[in-house]
Structure formats: C-alpha cells, structure tokens
C-alpha cells in the first residue's frame, strides 16, 4: 500500500515550512506519494485581496515558477526517497460566511486556474487538464473558522464534477461522506511540521500519477489511516 498525502501547503501560500523542507519532512518519514497544493485564493473580495497582498496565495504571475519548482523538487524526491511528488493547488473561495466558502484540491494541474472563476468554469478547466478534483474539508470541523460548507450544501449540483471528497482532514472525520457513499481520501492539510501526524490515505496501486488518479476516481483499493508516531 502506498502511504499518501494529497493536501500539503508550503511557504508559497500560508504554510510555515519551505517547499524543499516540506518534501524532506515527508521523504524522511517514508511517504510514497504526496501532492503539494498551495492556496490559489479568490481575489474578488477583501479577504482574498489581503491574501494576495501578504503573498499567502499562488498568483497567476508566479504560478509557472511554483509548478516548475515543485517539479524540480519532485525529481529530487524521487531520486532520493523514491517518493512521488505531484504538483497541485487548493482553489480557495473564501467568504465571510462558511456557507459560501469552498476549497477544492486540483491535483496534477498544468495551467493556472483562477479561484475567482465560477465553480463550473473551474471544474471544466480542471477536467480539461485531467487534474484530480477533490472537495476539501466539506463539512463541520472542530475548528469552525476553517469550515467551508458550500460544496456539501450544493452537492446535488456539483458532485458530478468531484472525483473524491475528503473524508478526513487533519484531526477531523466527516462521516457524512461515508453515509453518502462518495469516493473518499484523507489528508493532513499540512501547514506546520506537527501536522505530519494526522489522517492519511493508503492506496493499493502502482506508484505513478495516472494509476493514482485512476485508483482515487474508481475508489477501489483506497483506505485511510491515522498516521501517528
């Protein structure tokens, strides 16, 4: 089984650990597959503008540099640790109300996708790039300030676009995903070194980007584990 984490932030957005160190941290701990998914925040409101101003978001003008650095680090990680690193982003549509907010992981993304676009446009652009689409922390959480409920509340409309839902995020477990029988994965939502010890995904597939995407989409051979030291 491959030990995986598909939700990891670095200093490219609001993570506290630099990209290289983040990769080393996961590599040193024996991970097989990780995705670097820094925030792309919507710039169409005050919250988003602040995130852009304080460089807590990947922006269109540094997206290529971001992807190129992740790919460079991915080569190093594969060579040194035998760990597959996949570039991604977390599209973060942030509003004052958690009912309106939504976070979406796009894994194996190639071109910039703006968080200010409509949901349909984001999903279609991601599908065009064959990126994996994951709904992040979709339900109520222990830390209510991080709640993003829009996708869950509108699941009838958007579930068809979503490849998998986070059934667990760091310390929270969302049993509603299980009840609805949606495809699932579990991630750390890594921002600090201590977040290494949290919910993770185990995949029973080959260690290649395509196999991993297929495994998650078909949701066979997927398990979750609470990774602790």
């Amino acid at each position, binding site marked *: 089984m491959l*030990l995986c984490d598909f939700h990891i932030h670095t200093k490219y957005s609001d993570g506290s650990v630099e990209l290289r160190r983040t990769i080393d*941290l996961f*590599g*040193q*701990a*024996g991970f097989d597959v990780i995705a670097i998914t820094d925030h792309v925040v919507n710039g169409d409101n005050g919250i988003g503008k602040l995130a852009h101003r304080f460089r807590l978001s990947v922006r269109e003008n540094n997206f290529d540099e971001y992807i190129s650095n992740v790919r460079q680090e991915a080569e190093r990680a594969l060579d040194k*640790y*035998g760990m597959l690193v996949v570039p991604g982003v977390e599209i973060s549509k942030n509003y004052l109300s958690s009912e309106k907010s939504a976070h979406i992981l796009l894994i194996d993304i190639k071109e910039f996708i703006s968080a200010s676009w409509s949901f349909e446009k984001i999903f279609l652009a991601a599908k065009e790039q064959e990126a994996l689409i994951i709904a992040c922390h979709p339900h109520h959480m222990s830390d209510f300030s991080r709640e993003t409920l829009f996708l869950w509340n509108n699941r009838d409309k958007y579930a068809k676009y979503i490849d998998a839902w986070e059934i667990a995020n760091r310390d929270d477990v969302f049993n509603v995903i299980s009840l609805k029988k949606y495809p699932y994965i579990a991630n750390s939502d890594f921002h600090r*070194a*201590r977040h290494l010890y949290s919910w993770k995904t185990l995949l029973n597939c080959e260690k290649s980007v395509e196999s991993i995407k297929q495994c998650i989409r078909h949701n066979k051979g997927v398990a979750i584990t609470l*990774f*602790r*030291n």
Partner: protein
Amino acid sequence: MEIFYVFAGLTILGLLAYGLQIWAVRSTLKKNTGVLEYWSDGIKCPSTPLLHHSHPPVSILKPLKGLDDNLFDNLESFCVQDYPEYEIIFSLQDYNDPAYKVARKIKDKYPDKDISVVVKQCNAGLNPKINNLIPAYDTSKYELILISDSNVMVEKNYLKEIIKHMDDPDVGLVSNIIRGVGGRTIGSVLENLHLNSFILGSVCFLDKFLKMPCVVGKSMLMRKSDLEAIGGFKAVKDVLAEDYIIGKKMHKKGKKVVLSSHMIKNVNEYWGLKKFINRHTRWGRLRWKIGGIKYLTELISNPVFMSFLPMLLWEFSRTTLFFALFISLTKVAGDLYLGKITDSDSNPLVYLLSPVKDIIIGLIWFVPILSNTVVWRGNRYLIGKDSVLSPCPDTGMWSWRYRLVDAIRARIA
C-alpha cells in the same frame, strides 16, 4: 547580604567548572590532531593512511522505534560508509511502526549493501531498547558490534575512525562525543544548546579529569566476547541507563572505555518544548539514581540558574540583576565558543536563548528528587538505584496518583 555572597560564590564555582568543561572539550577534540604523524619530509599528514589499521567486519545494530527527525538521512549515512565489510541490522518490534517503512526504503535503495530488517517482538526485560536489540544481536554475523541510535547521522569515515581503537585488545568499548544539530523549533533549539554545552562538556570532563567511563548510548562499539563477559544484554535488560551500566561493567572488568574524538551528529529539528522537558526530566532521574549525592553538584554547575537564585531568595536589586546578567552573558559567550570549536550549525543569535535553557534545566533538576517514576516510549516505570526499572503497580497509591494525572491531562487536551 550573606545569602547573595553564598550564591555568588557557588555561581563563580560553577563558572569555573564550566571553564574546565570547555577545556576538556577542546582537549578531546585535539585528540584528532594529537594522532597526526609526519611524512619523511617533515610535512604533517593524517595518521590513518600510515598506521595501516585493521578493518575487521562489523555488525551495526540499529534499534528503531517511531520516526526520529531526519530518520531517512540518518539511516542512509550508515549505508555509505567508506569501510570494506559491514552489515546493518534494522531492528523493530512491530510491522506497524512507521520506522519500518523507512527501513524498507533504505534497504531497497541499497540492494548491494548487506542490510536486514528484523521485526521481532521481544519481551526479555523492561528496557525497550534492549528488547529491540536482542533480536538484532542474535541475527548479527560479526564479532564486532556497533550499537547506534536511530537519531544519529555520521560522516563517511565514521567506522574507520572508531574501529581503529579496537586495534588495542585492551579496549572494551568505544563511544563518541555527540553534537546536536538542526534546531528549527524552540524545543529542538534548546535541546541542541543543552547537548552542545552541558552534555558535551560533562562527558568530556568526566573522561579527561575524573577518568570515569561516561558512555552515551548513541554510539557504542564493542566485541561480542567482551559483552558476553559482562553478562550480555540480559545483564542490562531491566535498567534505564543501559549505556552507562555497560560502560561501568566493562571498566570493572579491566577493559578500557574509550571516548572517540570523532563527533557524531544528533539531528533534532522539530521538537516541542514538552519533549525537551520530558527527555531531561528522564535523564535527570537517571543521573540522580546513578550518581546519588553527586547529582547535587549538577545544580552548582549551572551558574546561570544559581545566579538568578539571589533575586528570588534575597531581593530583586540592581546588584542581583547585574550579577545574573553578567553570568548569563559569560555563559552565552562560553556556549558560543563551544559552538565554534565544534563547528555548530546554529545561528549565533540562538545562543541568547542559552540562559533560558539553563533556567529551565535548573527547574527540572528538582523533579527527580520529588518523583521516582519515568515514562519512556509510552511506558511508565518506577526507577530504583543504578536506574533499575520496575513496573509501575496497577493498584494502591501509585495507580490513583497516575489515574488522576492522566485524567487532568485528558481534560486539558
């Protein structure tokens, strides 16, 4: 005023002791240059190529439990040794241990190296490290064994440098000086400051001036025959300080216990403050149970803590404040110097935290006198003389005390 003079005197005494520790560290490090020899034309050169030391095969026993900082690199550094013949045995108690995956990855990365991963439950005693070592020891092929902790990283010439001491048949055990590297959080910064000042200084001081074997178990090289002669691992299966006791038994048997000047790195990157406090409370208990009354000298050898006591016990005045600040700055300078001679990777500004660390260590010093229980790798034990462990009883006063502590902790969490 008398109180101030008493504490000032003790503080100066502590500072002098610290000066001797620095001297001891310098002197130990100079051993490297002490073995330099001269080519026939008078040019200085390292002794190693000329002395033709033997290179007997060695079994490296690596007990693993959980993920240490930098684990992959630590283990990998043993796979790239510039040494002709050696085996590495990674030993674990459980397939579900997260370190198992790292050990397997290392084995897969170096298919041409003699690496084995042994997973075997062993409940021979109460010391979990010894329980972990016994299956590895049973598997090992060679007469020379090197016990090496999972949290150390070594240079390529490490094996060559330490095994040369074994050319002398009277040498029973070789251990190394360690330095803490890689602090990225407050806990690991404090840990590295302490390793690179008090621990490093004390080990070198005991070795140089008191000729006492003070073995730190992060690296222990010995012959199987010598280990068997002192009773093998079974003789230390129920003690907490197995490294110290092995060194002591070797010494008693008339074997030399050598402190190699080859420095190994103890990588501590992401420690929390709690982990730092827990480790030094445990080590403090250990020294209290082994050293007895000698443990009291540790407080005196903490000049920063002693210099702050007059402010608490006598009065907060300009004199006491300046005295404490002067001693703190002197200690910072001493730590900075130690860092310089040991090629520390720490930012010089980090040394300003040294007095804070010394005050925390001073407070921790009292804990072993008040309590004789120790929690190690999730297990709780009572600790007796010479660090002999016994299980914490499930009934009676102890159980109530710990149920209460656990309940409070659970509530806080």
